[in-house]
């Protein structure tokens, strides 16, 4: 199992090298934004994977609350932590893209505001985990908070369709040039692989920590 995950990590890192080449060299620039549009190839995959990870944390939370099996608590902790890292990465990338295109680092439009709420919610739940010493209480409280906090995640995705915002809406399928779409989908695969690797490592750490806590 441990060796398998090392392979997953190695595939992820090799894929990332290829993905960087894909985004910077293979894919064409955009006629309106030029090379600035290339940040798309990391921004969109990271956004998708961040939302998927927080959804994994949400499902694990429900499974902990209904089944009371420890593995769901480990998975919730692992997926939430990697999801928060992706969420922070997402906002930093977005800011870097926003400054030269929108003319600002940040705007309180519906998309950016809901993402800020999403990241802060899960940072808060990680902090909550850190200060509850009793493992069962910690698992139950953080699972309950995650179920409530997750409600915002679909809103993050849909708000640009529902509300006026500075952020653009989703690019419709079929409008993207094949070379652009290939890189976008490949990089989504790579970010997913890297996150699977990190979540697996983090899951092992959570399991070890909990075993130690139970022994004390």
């Amino acid at each position, binding site marked *: 199992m441990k060796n398998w995950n090392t392979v997953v990590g190695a595939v992820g890192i090799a894929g990332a090298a290829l993905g960087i080449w894909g985004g910077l060299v293979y894919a064409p620039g955009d006629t*309106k934004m030029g090379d600035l549009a290339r940040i798309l190839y990391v921004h969109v995959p990271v956004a998708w994977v961040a939302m998927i990870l927080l959804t994994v944390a949400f499902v694990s939370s429900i499974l902990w609350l209904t089944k009371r099996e420890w593995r769901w608590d480990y998975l919730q902790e692992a997926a939430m932590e990697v999801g928060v890292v992706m969420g922070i990465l997402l906002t930093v990338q977005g800011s870097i893209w926003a400054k030269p295109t929108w003319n*600002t680092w940040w705007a309180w439009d519906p998309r950016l505001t809901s993402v800020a*709420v999403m990241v802060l919610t899960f940072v808060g739940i990680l*902090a909550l985990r850190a*200060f509850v010493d009793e493992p069962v209480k910690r698992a139950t409280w953080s699972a309950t908070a995650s179920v409530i906090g997750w409600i915002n995640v679909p809103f993050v995705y849909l708000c640009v369709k529902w509300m*006026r915002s*500075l952020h653009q809406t989703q*690019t419709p399928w079929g409008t993207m040039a094949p*070379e652009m779409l290939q890189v976008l989908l490949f990089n989504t695969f790579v970010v997913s692989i890297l996150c699977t690797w990190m979540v697996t490592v983090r899951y092992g750490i959570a399991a070890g920590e909990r075993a130690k806590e139970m022994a004390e």
Partner: protein
Amino acid sequence: MKKKLPAILVVVAVVLVLGFLGLGSVGDNLVYYWSPAELQAAGPKALGADVRLGGLVEAGSVRSEGMSTVFRVQDAEKKASVLVRTEAIPPQMFREGIGVVVEGSLGADGVFASKRLLVKHDEIYTPPKAGEDVTKMIKAAKE
């Protein structure tokens, strides 16, 4: 136990920030920007209020006046438009036909005075055709 205090401080900070966002920013801005038609329909009520105006830069309306840039923002349907004067330096993406959001207020003279100019870009990405140089195209579009 030693981990508790910083963690509690983080939770308190997060709750405060979420509360601030929830009550302040989001509450006031359920509509992120007004369209030109909505601003005009509001009549005297809109005068002097700090609002955002969003729309497209009308073709042929952009000119410089001293340190300011003056242009018209029109609806997507091209039915209504508002004259905007901004002290902001237009960013690289600013051009005729592109989406903009300007922050400021409508004066009694019907001119929207703005200090902040944001440029929207759309969700369609198009590669240059064979033989086209993107850098040159962007320079040409700015001129």
